[in-house]
């Protein structure tokens, strides 16, 4: 905790009053960092140029000044917090730098079986790969892309935490709903040309795009 003292003109009288207070309560400022507020003073005030040294002469450690305005001699004024003794110079040897870990691949989730009606696979961290089919009434929610090696009959929600570059791939598209980054398309709105095909789904300018895989 730091004290703030606000000297007032005339400064000679203020310094005497401060000294008197310090004799009444010796040790009051001992070891305390003090900030001097110049807000009551103007550049012309008598004794303002020597004020800080006068205060320090009383044994008060000034660490900073405030509201110095145009007052000369007060700036720059940065003193060490405690004591102000010169510090020893310690040479720091360069530490043995550990070899940087090879970058970890983003973890993906692999579901080996079918995802049945009523089941949800939630994986906000990354990609989801399903080796079986995703049934009608089932749901895959991935932070990244979704890859389905069977038929997608349920819902697939990719890039679910705001990742618009996520994509959805499936071997056969019979989906109820697909979504990327919150944009979605229901079965009703899907073109009949892509139903039943191996499909690739992505997001372009806020629109869900579906095309057969080449």
């Amino acid at each position, binding site marked *: 905790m730091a004290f703030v003292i606000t000297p007032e003109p005339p400064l000679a009288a203020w310094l005497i009053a401060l000294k008197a207070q310090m004799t009444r309560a010796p040790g009051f400022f001992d070891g305390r960092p003090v900030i001097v507020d110049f807000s009551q003073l103007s550049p012309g005030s008598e004794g303002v140029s020597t004020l800080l040294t006068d205060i320090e002469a009383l044994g008060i450690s000034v660490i900073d000044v405030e509201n110095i305005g145009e007052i000369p001699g007060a700036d720059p004024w940065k003193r060490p917090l405690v004591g102000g003794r010169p510090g020893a110079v310690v040479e720091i040897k360069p530490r043995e730098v550990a070899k940087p870990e090879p970058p970890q691949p983003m973890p993906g989730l692999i579901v080996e*079986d*079918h*995802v*049945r*009606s*009523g*089941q949800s696979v939630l994986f906000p961290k990354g990609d989801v790969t399903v080796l*079986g*089919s995703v*049934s*009608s*009434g*089932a749901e895959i929610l991935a932070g990244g892309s979704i890859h389905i090696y069977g*038929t997608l*009959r349920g819902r697939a929600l990719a890039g679910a935490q705001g990742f618009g570059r996520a994509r959805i791939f499936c071997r056969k598209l019979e989906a109820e709903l697909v979504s990327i980054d919150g944009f979605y398309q229901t079965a009703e709105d899907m073109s009949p040309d892509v139903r039943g095909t191996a499909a690739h789904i992505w997001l372009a300018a806020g629109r869900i795009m579906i095309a057969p895989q080449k």
Partner: protein
Amino acid sequence: MAKVIVVTSGKGGVGKTTSTAAIGAALAQSGDKVVVVDFDVGLRNLDLVMGAERRVVFDLINVIQGDAKLHQALIRDKRLENLSILPASQTRDKDALTSDGVAKVIAELREKFDWVLCDSPAGIERGPAMAMHHADIAIVVTNPEVSSVRDSDRIIGLLDSKTERAMRGERVEKHLLVTRYDPARAARGDMLKVEDVLEILSIPLLGIIPESQEVLKASNVGVPVTLNNPETAPARAYQDAVRRLRGETVPMVIPQERKTLVERLFGRRVA
């Protein structure tokens, strides 16, 4: 080593109870000790289809709650002495099925029988969950239409995640039984094709049971269709399914529309 089979579907009215009775009877016909257990607490029907409704004294819930011993609740079939039924309670609901209680009953049934067939209620809540929990094998009953297929898909997901086997990291052996297959409607394209159902559900096909008046007739007289008239098409389809369940290789025949002579003549005349 006893096998616990759950007959399940998700959707109601697809033929779980009929199939449980027919498969149970067909298994018992070859001499194995079989019990069919009704898990549809509050809406029991298996006793009716098996023709045991007039002999129910104690039920599954009584056994679970310790009010009756298991052997008191088991009803022996009149036609096949190695076939028993454990009825459900009609006056209670599914909340009366406790996990511990069901586990104890199933463990006891495993000791007494070769096959334990659990007839699951429809839905995905407590009843079906209890019925499938201890299963080694699941027979997923599906009609060739979209809502039934999707519900079955949901059930397969639960079989792979919520059963005791799934929790141990093992798998429940799953088989698809397509019921109420109508060759005439299939020919007209009014119904999903069996291959479409298989593609969606991706589990091995156990059998295709044709839609038939025989099934309804058998239910009404309280006799499993495989016992009532073993020579009918649905009875044969169930028998084939049971042989496949035992591991035999039986060629799969997709039922075709069969026209009577009169229909053929009539058809020709119109053409």
